[in-house]
Structures are given as structure tokens and as C-alpha cells.
């Protein structure tokens, strides 16, 4: 088996005041993997990245990054890692190029190598023509691309991307996803990405850990998580009390019907062939259906099933 590049065992973090942000999480990340930490705000994703990047002290647990203990060898860990933070963290007094040069000096990248990698990364990120401009003049997408370039400048073994597309418009988000996919192929870097965007986790992650209230509640490949849940979802928009529909569905032994407002969702285990029987049973119970739809299941459905809440925080009935 390949030696994991990140090894986390029983990680706990309790802040002063008693808030327990992480309640004993464990996971491993293989070299070259894109690993996603998916969960709502406050789930513990950023705290996890904070521990892995040595800015948050763990309360308990054994954590190694690139073979180094994060508590005993923080400098060695930092030499092997690059970080793109949730908020833009650029030196606003400098140009894009100067921001990269500062990073190269701090990470001790030899001058020639720094020059070559800077040119190459600026090209990949489509920033060559704007490199000499002050970063104050950059758009949100440009700043984010520059930050990714900066984090990669020292050729880290592990790249941490904390909510890399938050606040960006869909087109820019798509371009960042492309960049992440390219990086994995081109740089052979291990990427740990936190996100609360389901489509982002599905689009770019090899494996996803679903985090909720400081615990990992599921960990697998996105496809495997979806298949275990059911590849499709039947949505029934009900006229009247949806609980009657749920009662009918439970009598059918339908798995995990969930109610959101006036809509009942049911995962379909055997594909669309379940649909007719379910609709018939619901109507047979005297429930009037305003609309029926079948759609592909998402990680949000998986999250709802596991936690009873949506990723955006709305509780289910």
C-alpha cells in the first residue's frame, strides 16, 4: 500500500471556552489524491486545515503531513505545503510578481528555479500580462488564481485549498476547477480541498470526507457515496400534508423518505423502475401529487440522509 502523505488519527480540537471544533477525526490521503472535506460552515473543515498547516494547535491526536509531525516539526511541514486561504491573502502593496517573489524567497526556492516556475505558473493561470500590476487592481478570480500560483511556487507535496471558489461567479468557479484538475495531472501534487459546494466536491475530488459538527460522517469516492445512497431521487410535490405521503412510502419500505417544505424525496435504489410503484402507493393513500420528478442524486442528498439537514443549514421536517 502507498504510504499516505497525510495521516490523521483521532484529531481533536477544543478552543478556549469549551467549543469542541473537532471530535476525534481520522483519515488518510494518498499521494497525488484530490481529497475533499465537504460540510456546512462551522463543521470543522477550516480547523482541520489549520491543524494540518500548523496554524491551529491540536488538542489531541496524531497528525503527520509529508512524513512530519505537525506539532513537533512544524517548519518541516510548512516547507512541504502550500496553502490557499478562504479569504484573499495577498500583499496588497505589491504586484502579482512581487507577491510570488516574496513567497519564493520565504520557501527558499533557488533563484533560477523560482524564475522558471514563476513564468510557468503565471502562464498556466493566465496572469502573465498582468504580473507587473498591483494586486489591488486584480479581480476576485485573478487574485484567486495568483494565490494558487503562489502556493505552488515551491513545488509543495501538499496543496491546501480552503474554500477556493467561495464568492466567485460560476464561470470563474469552473475555470478554477479546471486549474485544480490540471494541477493534479501536471504537478503530481496532493490536494486537500475544503468546500461546501457539492458540485465542487463531485467535480474535482477523488475522495470526499463529509464533515458535520466536528466529525467525519462519511468518507468515500463521490460516486460510491452516491451509489450507496441511490443514484436517482424521486421528488414528489404534495398537495396537503406531506406526512401522509411519508406514511404511505414507509408502508412500501421505501428507504429514507425526506420532507422539505411540501416536497417528499425518495432515493431510488433500483433506478426508475421503482417510480411507478411509489407513485401508485402514494396516490392510493389518498395523497394528491402536484408534481413528480426524477433527478440524479447529489452529495446534498447523501448529507441530508446522514444528518437530517441540508448543506446550507435548513433543517428538514
Amino acid at each position, binding site marked *: 500500500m502507498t504510504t499516505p502523505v497525510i495521516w490523521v488519527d483521532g484529531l481533536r480540537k477544543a478552543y478556549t471556552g469549551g467549543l469542541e471544533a473537532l471530535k476525534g477525526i481520522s483519515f488518510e490521503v494518498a499521494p497525488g489524491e484530490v481529497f475533499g472535506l465537504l460540510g456546512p460552515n462551522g463543521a470543522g473543515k477550516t480547523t482541520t486545515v489549520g491543524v494540518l498547516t*500548523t496554524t491551529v494547535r491540536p488538542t489531541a491526536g496524531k497528525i503527520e503531513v509529508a512524513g512530519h509531525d505537525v506539532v513537533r516539526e512544524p517548519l518541516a511541514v510548512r516547507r512541504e505545503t502550500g496553502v490557499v486561504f478562504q479569504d484573499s491573502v495577498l500583499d496588497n*502593496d505589491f504586484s502579482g510578481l512581487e507577491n510570488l517573489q516574496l513567497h519564493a524567497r520565504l520557501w527558499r526556492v533557488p533563484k533560477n528555479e523560482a524564475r522558471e516556475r514563476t513564468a510557468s505558473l503565471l502562464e498556466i493561470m493566465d496572469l502573465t500580462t498582468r504580473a507587473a500590476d498591483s494586486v489591488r487592481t486584480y479581480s476576485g478570480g485573478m487574485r484567486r488564481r495568483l494565490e494558487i500560483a503562489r502556493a505552488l511556487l515551491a513545488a509543495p507535496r501538499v496543496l491546501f485549498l480552503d474554500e477556493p471558489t467561495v464568492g466567485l461567479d460560476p464561470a470563474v468557479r469552473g475555470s478554477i476547477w479546471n486549474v485544480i484538475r490540471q494541477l493534479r495531472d501536471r504537478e503530481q501534487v496532493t490536494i486537500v480541498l475544503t468546500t461546501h459546494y457539492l458540485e465542487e466536491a463531485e467535480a474535482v475530488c477523488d475522495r470526499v470526507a463529509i464533515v458535520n459538527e466536528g466529525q467525519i460522517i462519511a468518507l468515500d469516492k463521490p460516486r460510491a457515496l452516491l451509489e450507496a445512497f441511490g443514484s436517482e431521487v424521486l421528488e414528489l410535490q404534495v398537495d396537503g400534508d406531506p406526512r401522509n405521503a411519508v406514511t404511505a412510502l414507509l408502508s412500501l419500505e421505501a428507504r429514507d423518505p425526506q420532507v422539505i417544505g411540501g416536497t417528499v424525496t425518495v432515493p431510488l435504489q433500483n433506478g426508475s423502475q421503482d417510480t411507478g410503484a411509489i407513485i401508485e402507493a402514494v396516490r392510493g393513500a389518498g395523497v394528491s401529487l402536484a408534481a413528480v420528478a426524477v433527478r440524479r442524486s447529489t452529495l446534498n442528498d447523501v448529507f441530508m440522509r446522514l444528518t437530517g439537514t441540508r448543506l446550507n443549514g435548513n433543517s428538514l421536517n
Partner: protein
Amino acid sequence: MIQTATFGLGTLYRRRLAVSTRTASGMIGQVVPPLLWVLVLAPALDTALGSFNPQVDYYTYVALAQVAFLIPFTSMFSGINVIVDKDFGVLRELLVAPVFRAAIPLANALGVMTVALVQVAILVGFGILRGAEFDTSPAGVAWFLAACSLLSLSTYGIAETLALLIGRQEAYGPMIPAVGVTPWFLAGSLFPITLLPAGIEQVSLFLPWTHALALMRYGMMQDIDPGLADIWGMDSNGTMALLSLLALVAYAALTLFIAIRVFYRKSTS
């Protein structure tokens, strides 16, 4: 080991200098009030009031006091950069860099000290042009520079600590004159500390301003009582200068140590 411990200090120091020089308005703004004193107010005071001691060149006496005014003011002003780096700047990037965290506040302190020394050079230059009579012997300049440097490091340690603890520009701003300027009035700037009210004189003995100013005058003004005897009550100026120098070293070490400890505590949760 030393090389590892100090790695990044040079890079961070150059960054701090670059940030300071790119906000030229701040640098110039800090120099203007003391320059006004040196060029206008000090000569006017000299003419209007003379001196507490006819043997003292009061204009030069006050001009040197402005150096002790400028340095802490620049230090305190630079505390704003600590907050800006934390809130809008690159501090988080620096915290994940493979450098010892202590290098970050230390580089800031050295960068601010360099800026302050350049400002002092400008001030002294204008003072000489206006007629101040400084002793520019190598030994005198060495005492003067040591006092300036240590006063800068001491007061920057205070500034960094306050900026980290306060954390907000709007709350830190009023501290600049309160902490950066107020002690100057009690440090023997315009008259010897023995003329201060009882009690306040004792307080002044514990201010780095007082020791720095006495050392500056010991270095740059020949044949006058620099005020060292008012602090130490001894006969030998050389011994007293050494004691004040050690006091300043202790102040600088203590305030920077506290700043680094606070920085560690604030930067790692």
C-alpha cells in the same frame, strides 16, 4: 541552528521596508512635526526663553529632544501595519511559511528601526543646517545611534504588543499619541527631569525615553550635563551612560520578548 532560526528574517525585513517606503505619506507625515520643532519652534524657544542653564545650547538641546519624539511616534504609527497585515494583508501567508514565527515581529522591529534612523538622519541634517551644534565624533555618534536604535526597538515592542492585543485600527489609533508621545513630556525633553513635580520625576526614571534622551545628549552634546546624573546620581558620566545603555537593552529585550509571546499566542489558536 542560528542560520535556521534567523532564516527568513532578511526577506521579512526587506518586505517591511518596502511596505514602509510605499506609504511615503506616512513616513513624511511622521517627520513633519519634529521638523517643524527643529526649524521653527526650537529656535523661537531658544530666543524667547533662553535656557535653564546658560552653558547649554538650548536650540541643540531641544533639537535632540525631537529625535526622542520622532522615534517612538514612528514605532507606534507602524503598529497600524501589524493590524493591516492581520486584517487585509499577508500575515496568514507568513504564518504558513517555513520560518520561525518570531522572525515576523523581529523583522518588523528591524524594518521600523531602519525607517526611524533614516528619519532621524533627515532631522539631524536639517538641525545642523539650522545651526544646531552636534558632536559628531565617532564615539559620540555611536552613543547616539545606540540610543536611537534601542529606543526604536523598545517602543516598537510596545507598539506591536498593543496592536496585537487591540486588533482594530479605530481602537489602536488613539493609542499612537497617548503611548507614543505622552512619555516624551516626562522624559527631560525640554527641561531636566529634576524640574518635574515630585512623584512624576520618579516615574520618568523608568521610561526608556528618559534614558535614551540622556544618552543622545551624552553622545551629541559636548561639555554639558546630559541628564544622566539626574537619573543615576553618580559622578562618572561614562558609567552612567553605560548603565542607561544597559537599561535600554533591557527595555528592548523585554518589550520585544513580550511582543513575540503575544504574537505567538495570537497567531496560533
